[in-house]
């Protein structure tokens, strides 16, 4: 039969400076305490965190010399773990964790869809290059393209503003795009980020 040193002896040894005693205590009660925490929180990562916090409190109390052997070591550790579990639920109640599901992703609402600094620089450069290319277009085509793309005007509004028919405005827009592509191909310009 294997001789097992009592918890109280190990605790006293640890207080006296025997670090090995702590290792024996943790390994001895690992499963019991971990399973107790897991049975309440049902999350492996949270269990690890609470277990760690529990023993940090245990170590501090023992090293500080404020531990009194009134009860048993394990019930005392379980009580600390229990209090930390309650703290965990209180914290989560104040700030509930929402992970979303297949139908709804929280990041679709709170996500930051702005470009990062590098992508914003590239986009600005492309916009500048594109404006220079548009300036190369004949006046009538450039006018229609600017109204349609940059001023978001309808072809009806463009025709009214330029005094040409809608079909002419559509034709000028078509040629503007064809000519832009030609300039881009001719000069091997890459306009992608």
């Amino acid at each position: 039969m294997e001789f097992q040193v009592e918890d109280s002896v190990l605790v006293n040894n640890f207080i006296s400076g025997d670090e090995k005693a702590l290792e024996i205590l943790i390994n001895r009660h690992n499963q019991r305490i971990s399973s107790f925490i897991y049975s309440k929180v049902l999350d492996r990562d949270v269990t690890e965190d609470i277990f760690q916090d529990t023993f940090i409190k245990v170590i501090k109390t023992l090293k500080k010399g404020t531990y009194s052997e009134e009860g048993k070591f394990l019930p005392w550790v379980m009580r600390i773990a229990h209090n930390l579990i309650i703290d965990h639920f209180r914290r989560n109640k104040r700030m509930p964790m929402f992970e979303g599901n297949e139908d709804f992703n929280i990041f679709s609402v709170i996500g930051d869809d702005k470009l990062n600094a590098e992508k914003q620089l590239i986009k600005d450069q492309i916009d500048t290059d594109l404006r220079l290319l548009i300036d190369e277009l004949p006046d009538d085509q450039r006018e229609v393209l600017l109204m349609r793309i940059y001023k978001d005007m309808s072809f009806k509004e463009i025709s009214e503003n330029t005094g040409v028919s809608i079909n002419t405005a559509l034709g000028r827009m078509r040629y503007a795009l064809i000519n832009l592509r030609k300039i881009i191909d001719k000069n091997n310009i890459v306009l992608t980020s």
Partner: protein
Amino acid sequence: MENIYVNNKKECKLIKVKPETIQFLLDYSKSLHFVEKDGIVFQSNLN
């Protein structure tokens, strides 16, 4: 108070924390020291 008791007992299982967690605690313990001076307790972590 928050009801923290599980309804589904099947979800209760025996587990152990990772060896890394235990190692962290042992290292933490070795680094932790309390020094008392003039009735004041100082805590220090010496890595």
